[in-house]
């Protein structure tokens, strides 16, 4: 009898355990919120073209800016003054006497954009894209350039924005991705320097004078120096003390002859 009681108790215990277990399971499912599966993010493609081209474009932007800013903003100055073995474009000039200068490049910033664009377009086509192609092929991928390359350059404070439109298709492991345009942002003060150059030309055209000392006080980031040559040409050098980049411009106006 005692043995029976004992068995019954044992069964009870098992039942209790079972109930607790079931209750726990139920409770678990009641309390536990199963992680909501989220659809995995779409693949980023087989190759990060943007990152790859970024360094290539940046390199050429830096290169062309370093070429043009000592020369007044132009790759090949046409109307220039040679100073310290550098051809410096006249931004504002009057060959006569007394009269203020006449703007030779009233749309200087636009022209600089053009200079940058003209320089980097062929280099992207001949250097960056072939390099990209080689890199992708090295990774057993394929790239196909579908359309023409169009490029636009914009300038802003401390920035050069390059927008490259080049339709292309990359295939790797049966996965294909298409690209249409790439946007690059290069940190460079060319806009700042060109803006100051325009301001100098503007002041010179109106007042035959630019108060560069005062400018330095208002804008301590920039150092402007002026050198007047014997033929009444003023060479302004604008230095961005932050990046150490220097832009030169030549201006001739309000020239004063000796005597009459």
């Amino acid at each position, binding site marked *: 009898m005692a043995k029976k009681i004992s068995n019954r108790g044992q069964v009870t215990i098992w039942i209790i355990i079972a109930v607790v277990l079931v209750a726990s399971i139920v409770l678990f499912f009641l309390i536990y919120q199963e992680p909501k599966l*989220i659809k995995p993010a779409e693949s*980023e493609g087989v190759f990060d073209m943007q990152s790859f081209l970024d360094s290539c474009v940046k390199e050429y932007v830096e290169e062309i800016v370093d070429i043009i800013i000592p020369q007044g903003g132009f790759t090949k100055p046409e*109307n220039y003054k040679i100073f310290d073995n550098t051809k410096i474009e006249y931004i504002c000039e009057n060959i006569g006497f007394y009269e*203020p200068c006449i703007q030779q490049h*009233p749309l200087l910033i636009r022209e600089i954009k053009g200079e940058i664009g003209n320089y980097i377009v062929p280099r992207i086509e001949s250097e960056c894209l072939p390099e990209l192609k080689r890199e992708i092929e090295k990774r057993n991928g394929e790239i196909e350039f579908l359309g023409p390359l169009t490029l636009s350059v914009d300038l802003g404070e401390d920035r050069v924005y390059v927008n490259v439109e080049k339709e292309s298709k990359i295939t790797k492991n049966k996965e294909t991705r298409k690209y249409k345009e790439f*946007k690059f942002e290069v940190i460079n003060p060319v806009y700042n320097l060109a803006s100051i150059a325009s301001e100098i030309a503007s002041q010179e055209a109106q007042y035959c004078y630019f108060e560069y000392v005062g400018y330095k006080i*208002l804008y*301590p980031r920039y150092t402007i120096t002026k050198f007047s040559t014997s033929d009444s040409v003023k060479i302004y050098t604008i230095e961005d003390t932050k990046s150490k980049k220097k832009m030169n411009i030549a201006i001739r106006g309000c020239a004063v*002859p000796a005597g009459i």
Partner: protein
Amino acid sequence: MMKLIRKNYFESFFQIILLIVSIFAFSYFVSFAWEIPVVSAQQASGEPTKEQQSYLDELVKNSGFPIADNPEENANNAFDQLSRTQLQDYVGDMESDSGVFSFLSKLLPSTFTPPDWGNLLSGFLGQNGESAHTCPLSKDGKICQQYLPSQCEEKCAEECIPKPRSELPDGNECKLGTCFDKSEGTCQPRSPQGECTGQNIEWFDNSEEEVLECRKGCCILEEESLFMTSKQCEIQAASLGLEIGNGANFNSDITSEPDCLYGAGYVQKKEGACVFQSGDSNGENGCIFTTQDDCIGRTGDESKFHLNELCSKEELNTNCEKQKETKCLENGEGLYWFDSCGNRENIYDASRSDSGWNEGDVLPLGESCSVGEGNNPTANQGTCGNCNRFFGNVCGEKTEEPIEQKLDDDTQDYVCLDLGCYDPEGNRIREHGTSWCAYQSDVGLPGAEQISSNFEIINLIPGEFGPLSDLAAGRATDSVGSRHFRKSCIDGKIVTDPCADYRGEICVEERIKIPGSEIELSSAACRLNRWQECLAYNPDQKQAQLIGKAGPMAGKIAEFLTGTQCWADPDCFLKKVDVATGSMDSFHFSYCAPKYPPGFDLSTEEGRQSAEQICGQASNECTMVYVTTLSGKECKANCECGEIEFEKKMNDLCVSLGDCGFKANYAGELGGIDIQQLVSKEGAKIFIDPLYLAALFSHANAIPGEYIKADYGALQKNIGGGVSNLLNGFGEGPLKGLLGSGLGLGGGGGLPDVSLGGDKAVKGGYIAAGASGGLGVAMLLGSKIASASGGTIAVGPALANIPVTIAPVEGSIPSSIAITNGPIEITQGGEAVITYAGPPGAPGAGATQSAPFSIGPSLSAFSNFAIGAAIAGAATSFLIDVLGIGPGLSPGVVYGLVGTAAVGGGVMTVAAGSAIAAEGGASAIVGSYGISGLINVGTAGILQSAMATIMAGAVAVVIILIIVFAVAGVGKVEEKKIKFECKPWEPPIISLIGKKCEDCGKNDVLSDGSREFPCSKYSCETISQQCEFIPDSERPEVGGICVTVDNRDTIGPTISVLEDVLTDEYEYRDISDRGFEIRKKDKRGGEECINQFESVLFGISLNEYGRCKLSSEENADFDSMSDFEGGRLAQKHTYTFREVDSELFVESLSPGERSDISLYVKCEDVQENPSREPFAINLCIVPRDVSAPRAVIVIDGLEELLPYGTTDYELNIPYNEPVDARWDNEDVPFDEMENEFYCAGAEEDINGVWHCTAHIPITSDETDVYVRARDHPELEGSERENERNTNEESAHVTLRRSSSALEIDSLAPGNIVIKSGALTPEIEISATTSGGADGTASCFLSIDGGKEMLFENSGGTSHTQVLGAGNSALSSGAHVINVRCRDEVGNSASKSTSFTLEIDRISPKITRVYNDNGKLVVITNEPVQCSYLNVPISGRASACNFKFDEGNLMNVEGGSEGLIHNTNLDNSRTYHIKCQDSYKNEIGIGECNIVVKEGVI
């Protein structure tokens, strides 16, 4: 009866006629006796001629001060005109047909065709609008420039537009206007229309200030303010995701750039602590000090931002500790504390107990300490970090020089540095940002400042220029060769900007005193010197003629206008020359002259021509008039022209016109001009006035602190007031009325000659004016020659006759004397010239009317007397005039003669009348008229007869006296002309005070106390005629060098020895002014001469710059001689002589014998003047070798290191001649040495040396070798064996062998896999070496068997090379690097390594993402870190537009090896997630790996 009546009628008629005539005669006498002017009736129409009227209109309207009927309007017009003039100081109204170009047009007559003036003329003509054509594009790329028509084809790439630029029609491509770029928002004034085309570009035919779109204002953005156009503001705002009115604001009321940036527009950033959970175990928060937007962008929780609280504030419970260090902000704006997290805190402020921590709250700058105090802008430098550029300090590293600047707390490295400028002695001399003028000499007028300050008082005196002129009676003082400089103190450095040379620009300055401080701030600028304007204010020749015709009032008005314009112009002054002391003298005039006279470039023909033209305007001639009187010859007019005052005043004008006349240059030396030539005939008297000379010399010295005020506003105000006062009552009508009167009364003429004393023609003022003008610019010249008689006035046809000549009251009828036209005759005392003041016929009419009613017996008697007196007096006067004795007689004598004759004539006439009356039974009684009672003609016939007889005798005496005077020459007029010639100043031939050309730019004290300035061509070449400027192309900032040459010097340079240049072992001997010898000092080898293997460097010096040549022939022609140093122009010349060169100078040398040769040096100076005689340099050469052989390299003491294991060493010694050489391990004589070198034969190698080689056995680590040689091996065994020279001493060479081999101890990387995310990863190859000579070596590497290259860092024991760029770029895959090292001795070692490079350029991917109990979990395909943003960063359009580092880092689950990342998930937010692998690969900017929005993708 009828007969009687008829007779009476006849008598009455006769008397009436006599009465009329006598009235005329008496009126003349009366006016003559009382000096009442009588004017000519000629052309007294009262209306000007058409030509005159035209000129008057021009004068009134174009004089610069439009005169209207309304005086108030006059004042306004005048003020406007002044304002315009002043405001255009910087620019000048250059394109208008006024100002300088008007002046030039006056200066250049229409018939004047100058030589090829090139650009100068094109500039002039271009501006003047006369001949210039506009070229749209020149061949050298210039846009819209002007050329002469003749230049167009040569210079213009297109067809020239046959109009000057200023006259181009609308729509022309070269028409200038303002170019507005809508896409940039920028404007450019003076832009050619053709260059301003395209999309979003607009061209305005207005100046920039007139274009609304170009007006700048303050663009206030969230965190900064910018001064720009509204369009620019719009663009700028858009780039930050803002719009005007929504986050950005454009305030057009703020029109000042400083006000926008630092004043009313200043934007104080709203910053504070941005607290976030750091995950630190200690529970502290992380924190960054940033703006609210940025904080929200980072945390997505606005509550995390604590405005104006520092991260170190205790309540924030961050892990940032306060005040860890001090640093400067970018651009040096403030010295701040930074906390341990690197966050900026408050300004360093040691005056506060917590150094400015402020209990963790932001302390506004205004409440912080102040660096400056009182007079000291850096008074609290040691305790305060509130640096401010505007107050002259900036944060920077502490300094020691020129003064010590640091914080009191020595542990800090930064301080608010004083930006002021210091002199070398450490004295603070200028404030930062200030600019000031520095002059090389006195400038402007003497006491110009005093004149300016007195303007207000002076201008209260209407209508008179006397006080003004008197104050400026001096001269313009700028010295020849001087220049104006503008200096600036910027960041502690003084920058010098020269104004345009030749004083084409002047430096002007404003000073402002800081209230409550002793500090004075100054601002200076170089601006155009408008000296031409001054000259242009003066009437030109044509105008002068017209003014002369118009009469004295026209002259007065012309002077008024000229003076007003002249004084209103801050660059001009009215120079008044008046040497006359009596009111009747004529030599005085006023002339508008430059206050800052220009310099001239006399080195060119054009420059000299223009100088002569300008200076010539002050050339003038004064005619002194002498008259023979009863007491002898007396000067009657312009007597002072022979005095020193004349010269001084004329010279004052002359020196004021430019570099003209008698004055000193800036060095204090008189020019080369001969003062004796300046004043002809009389010679110069200036020299005898030491005070005057001292004044002239004193102008050479700059006056400390002197400056030219730029305070135009105040000047305008003063002058404007003065003008309005002066113009009061001068409406156009009255003015013309005055002029009309003058013209009407003036009468005709217009010829320049003045007749003096009837037939004595004298060139009057016209001539003086014409001569003075030289180019047609006439003086305002009063020219009136007075007769001492008082009754005869010789009036020159004065050009713009100055009113003071006669000074008629304005509005009154001018007297005849004031009539300045025509061939005015000098009327002598008693002359009966019929002139009339009133309209013709008026007086006559009166007389006619009176006649019928006044004729009676008594009147008849009086009439008879009067008629007789009049006739006699007139006849006498006529006689005096005809005989020309009037000028020599005093008025009393003239009156006596005429009076006597008149009374006599009267009495005789009465007597005659009485006789007629008696015959008719009539009695004539002089009744109640005048002389009644004196004579009773009818009753005293006998008495009458007696008186008549006496009077006839008196008349006869008068006539006799007159004849006697005439015979004696009384009244004879003689002239004496004093001519002053103003010529261009010329530099002194030589500097008498010892100023050297080479000193140009040095040691001349400028007005600011500095001594250095850039030497220019002008400043150089005015020191003396010996100076020539050579531009320094290498250092253009210093100008150039000024060298001494003498254009008139016919003496060539003097040559002397240059003692400090000579090859060491030689010396100069027998130095004289004719040459020197060169010999060896110590007779090495027993000889003092140069042998065939030696060379010697020597030098000569010249006393001036020159070129030198040399030859062995004393009398060689200079051109055929050999160049000395390539013919360089210099004062010091050197030459290296080699024996082989002797062939150039000596035909043959005797072998084995000493030869003395002389090299003759000749030099020429810049003018090609040869040196007086050849300078002989004696050298001796010994073709026979008497020297012992010598190794051409130093081998004695040489220690040669040899590689490890070397057993044999080849020792190679180059000798200077063929030798036999031997060696030994012991130092023994040549003959005892056991080992021989193998030496080359007679032929030297390409380097001209003879090599000897020996193989030295190396048996130990150190081997001693002793070497000796003997020359002339060809003589071995011959009779001349004893001539061979042998080394007396051995050369000792030590050969050291390395004790161990060179080893490459390590080479990395080795046999590993290198992973990189870079396209061209940088991999450093490193190696270490040991052993060999000393362990150091040069190591080379090759990549995959490629070309070897030297390690970038090598040469020691450690060698590194970073691969990854250019040729060293590595691609993915296995690579083998071979390294080879070699030390200096020759030990070498090699080693190789290999590694595999795996380049990972692929950005990581998220493979899974899910919500795990409120946690956002992402799983990536590679070990990475992920970050996210909830909202875009301020200023960016997209929340994916961030870099990994800018996002909030997600937690990396432990044990997931960087594959699983999580963060708390807030379903109300969007999570923009980016991941970055260890190679920094991440998805591009603007893209996210995944975006989870509200818990869903």
